Each structure stands twice: as structure tokens, then as C-alpha cells.
């Protein structure tokens, strides 16, 4: 009798508990979907050919956002140039060469810390090293370098993970066929791990594209009447532009604000989507 009561009771508890946890998950996810849909709806009407390809005028209260779009492209590509080769090389070291000792643990600790440093502190560092000490000035170069160091830990850890996922047997066979260690890494291990590495690279760059704080004092310009001409020019950028027009410019038409947010969101979501597709396709095709 007692046992029966207890057992019914605990199943009620389970049902209640499951509903509660499910509700929490729904409440976590719903605002994400809501945010994206809301911006898509609100910003949709601002999007036109002129908005994407035009320059801002009338104190940025009219016209398009081309220089901000181009600027964000430059910064994203710029940070990729530095962080992708360095990040992949570091991942190869950790997965293929490093022994499990104090030094390797130190590297891992450094990567974890690099990932945790606040973005505005990266901005300070970029200002101190690239803008002032190396005298790059507030420039695309300084901002890209700052962003690239920020994306490095993401790229290293995802690339290492996918390199490690390649079965040891692949390496053994390649070496036994007479290939050198580097040939094995380049032709076998890297090739197999490529989709995973690509996913990590895109996710890292996605973060760089959306960041504002690291470029505030290293390369972002409030307003530029023309596109940047060299890596030593400052540039407008989508996230910084959104910050500027939503807080610094009075009487800013709401349409342009939502439109800018939409373009930034689409930029970032597209990268995210590409990364997700690459990953799931690679998973589906993988035979080991």
C-alpha cells in the first residue's frame, strides 16, 4: 500500500519536474528565436539596393551603409589572414607533436585564459601594442590583428579537436608506406580533419565580425565619406556603426537602425549556417 503510494507519488514528481525543466528550456530558446524574427520583421522594410550599396549622408540619418559592410568584410578577412594559419599550426602542434607534460599544460591554460579575456581588454592591448607601440595607428591592420588574437583560442581548440578525431591508424599506415611525418599530417590528417577545422574557423571569424569592443580604439571610425584605401586607414564597421547610430546620433530614423541590425545579423547568421552545414555534412559522410 505504502510502496504503491510512494511510487505513484514519485512518478508525479517526475512528470512535474520534466515539465518544469522543459519549460525552462523553452524559455531559454524562445527569446533567441524571438530576437531574430523581430529584427528580421522590423528591419526588412529598410532593406533596399540603395541601403546596401549607398553611402550614408545627412549625418548618417539617410542613405546606405556600404562603408560599414565593406569595413566588416575587410576586418573579418584581415583577422583570418593572421589567425587561421597560426591557429591551425598551433592545433597541429598540440595534436601531433606535443607531449603530455608541464609545457603542454601551460599552453592549454594559456588558450583557456585567452578565450576568457574580456573583449574590451583586447581593445586595450591592441591600442597599447599595435596602435601606439608599433605605430600602426587606428587602422584596419591594428584592428584585424587585435581581432585575430581574440579568435585564436576558438580556432585552436576546434581545430585540435577535429585533428584528434582522425583515427591513429590513418597515421600509422601513412608512415609505414614511407611518408614523412609532415607529409602524413598534410596529406592525410589535415585532409580528413578539414571540415571540422573549417567549422571552427568560421565560428571564430563569426565572433570577430560581430565584435565591437576590440575595434573601438584600434580601427573603428565614426564616419568616413569614402572606402578605406589601405590597411593603414581606419574603417567603419557594422557592429560599431549600429552602436553609434543607436546611442550617439540624436533623431536617428528607427528604420535605419533596424536595417543595420538586420544586415549585421544576416552577416553573422550566414556564417553560422555555413559552419553548421559543413559540420553536419561531414558527420553524415564520415566513414570512420
Amino acid at each position, binding site marked *: 500500500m505504502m510502496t504503491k503510494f510512494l511510487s505513484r507519488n514519485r512518478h508525479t*514528481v*517526475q512528470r512535474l519536474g*520534466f515539465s518544469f*525543466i*522543459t519549460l*525552462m*528550456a523553452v524559455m*531559454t*530558446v524562445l*527569446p*533567441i*528565436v524571438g*530576437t531574430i524574427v523581430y*529584427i528580421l520583421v522590423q528591419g526588412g522594410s529598410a532593406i533596399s539596393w540603395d541601403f546596401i550599396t549607398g553611402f550614408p549622408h545627412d549625418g548618417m540619418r539617410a542613405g546606405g551603409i556600404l562603408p560599414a559592410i565593406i569595413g566588416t568584410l575587410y576586418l573579418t578577412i584581415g583577422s583570418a589572414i593572421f589567425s587561421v594559419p*597560426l591557429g591551425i*599550426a*598551433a592545433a*597541429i*602542434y598540440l595534436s601531433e*607533436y606535443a607531449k603530455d607534460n608541464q609545457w603542454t599544460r601551460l599552453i592549454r591554460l*594559456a588558450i*583557456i*585564459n*585567452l*578565450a*576568457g*579575456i*574580456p*573583449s*574590451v*581588454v583586447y*581593445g*586595450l*592591448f591592441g591600442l*597599447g*601594442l599595435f596602435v601606439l*607601440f608599433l605605430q600602426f595607428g587606428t587602422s584596419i591592420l591594428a584592428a584585424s590583428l587585435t581581432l585575430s*588574437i581574440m579568435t*585564436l*583560442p576558438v580556432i585552436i581548440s576546434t581545430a585540435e579537436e577535429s585533428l584528434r578525431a582522425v583515427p591513429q591508424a590513418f597515421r600509422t599506415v601513412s608512415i609505414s608506406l614511407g611518408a*614523412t611525418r*609532415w607529409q602524413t599530417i598534410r596529406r592525410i590528417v589535415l585532409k580528413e580533419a578539414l571540415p571540422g577545422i573549417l567549422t571552427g574557423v568560421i565560428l571564430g571569424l563569426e565572433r570577430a*565580425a*560581430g*565584435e*565591437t*569592443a576590440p575595434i573601438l*580604439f584600434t580601427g573603428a571610425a565614426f564616419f568616413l565619406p569614402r572606402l578605406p584605401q589601405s590597411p593603414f586607414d581606419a574603417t567603419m564597421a557594422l*557592429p*560599431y556603426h*549600429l*552602436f553609434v547610430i*543607436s*546611442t550617439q546620433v540624436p533623431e536617428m530614423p*528607427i528604420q535605419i*537602425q533596424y536595417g543595420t*541590425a538586420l544586415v549585421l545579423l544576416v552577416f*553573422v*547568421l550566414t556564417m*553560422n549556417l555555413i559552419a553548421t552545414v559543413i559540420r553536419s555534412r561531414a558527420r553524415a559522410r564520415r566513414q570512420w
Partner: protein
Amino acid sequence: MEKSLNWREFVITRAIKASGYSAVVFVLLIFFFLLREGLPALSEVDASSLLDIRWYPIEAYFGIMPLITGSLIITLGAALIAVPFGIGTAVYISEIAPRWMREILKPLVELLGGLPSVVLGFLGILVVSPYLRVLLDLPTGLTAFTGSLLLGGIAVPTVVSVAEDALDSVPRAYREGAWALGATKWQTIWRVTLPAAKSGVLTAVMLGVGRAIGETMTVMMVTGNAPVMATKLGSLFSPVRTMTATIAAEMGEVANGSTHYHVLFFIGMVLFLISLIVNIIASSVVFRSKKRAERILS
């Protein structure tokens, strides 16, 4: 042929080994430059006025206490939101959700992690804060609470993904053992799976908190930026200003090498040390638990 191959191999191997240490080099470089630009603050402003409760750089008041308390209260509020929701969602994804649901939820949470903080701040200004102002009947919607709410959302993906990893790595045999003893799935989650994943969940919480302390753009846009001491819980509903927002808002306007400039770098140094401590503790927790798991399983 043979010789040139060896030579190339040698160079490439060296380059890869050097790259391996790049992360260490960058952490040291960052710390060095923060020290170089931040330490002069200590000689230009004496320690007691640096710990003062008044931040008003124009008249050379550089008390950073209001900024520290501002960061703390917002982070506390964010943690109160992100920890239960993050762990709840992680439990749902790892233990309760059917497979197809998991395939949808995981990328969605990841997506939240990728949303630019400036977009969240923008929505905070236009949507969240006017709504909260009316709902809570406040003079302004730009308060610490608004910041906490949005920051909670920013910290959630970190908590979810790390906690979910931890729950996932609990051996299936633990759960099966509990079920075999007649425990319900719910009892198993609470008394077996979560306790077994405790250290990983703790790491998730710490990393989430670390993420919240360091967040800049969102808090700068929605917390009103008033450098007043946050001393009681009621301060949650008035404007505050964080360390990160102060740096971001003021660095653009100070003269290089001025006292104000050095103090801002000093604040950056404090932030760097906080994140260093949080991450070292978090990773040592991971390390310990791994060792223990190995012991149990061997």
C-alpha cells in the same frame, strides 16, 4: 631531393612548434602591455583615492569602487538568471529531450552565443528597457536589472554547452545502475547524473560568470552608465556603470599617457586578473574531476 625534403620538413616542424606556443606568448604580451600602461596609475593616484567611492575623472577623482560594485551587482543578477536556466536547459538537452529536439536546440543555443552583443544592446535600448520601465514603474528603464537580464542571456550559451558536455560524459552505466535499482529518470538525474557531473557543472557556472563580467557593449548600452555605488539589492533597479563600460566609453576621449589613460588601463589590468583567476580555478576543477573519473573507472 632527399636532402631538400628533410630541410623543408625541418623548417615546417620548427614553425609548427613555435606556433604551438603562440597562445602563451600572447597571454604574456597582453599582461605586459596592461602592466606597462596601467601601473603608472599607482604612482600618479595614491591607492586610497583609487579605492574611493567617487569616479569623476574630469576633476581627477579616480575612485574605482563604484565601477567594481557596478560590475559585481550586474554579474550577480546575470548569474541568478543564467545558472538555473543554463543548467536546466543543459539537463533538458542531455537527459530529457528526444534526439530530433536535441538536434534543433543545440545549434539554436550556439546561435545565441554568436549573436553580436551590440545587437542585444540595441534591442535592450529599444524594446527591453522601455518595457521594463513601464512594467516595474521606474524613472528609467536603463538599470542594472536590464543589464543583468541581457547579460544572463549572453552567459546562458556558455553555461549550457559546458554543463551539457559534463552531463554527457557521465558514463551511461551510472544511469543504468540507478534505473535498475528502481529510481525514476527524474531521481536519477538529481541523485546520480548531476552529482556525478558536479565539477563540470561548476566549471560551466564559473565560465558563465567570467563571460558576464567581461561583457562590454550590452552593459554599456543598457545600464545607464551612472558611476554610483551599488551597495544594496535595490541598486539593481537604478543605473550603474561597470568596469568594462567605463573603459569602452572613456578610452576614446582621453589623451595618451594622461593619468585618466593610465587608470583605464589599470582597470583593464584588474579585469584581466579577474578573468585569469576565474579561468585558472575553472580549469583546475575540470582537471581534478577528470582524474577522479579516471580513478573510479579504472
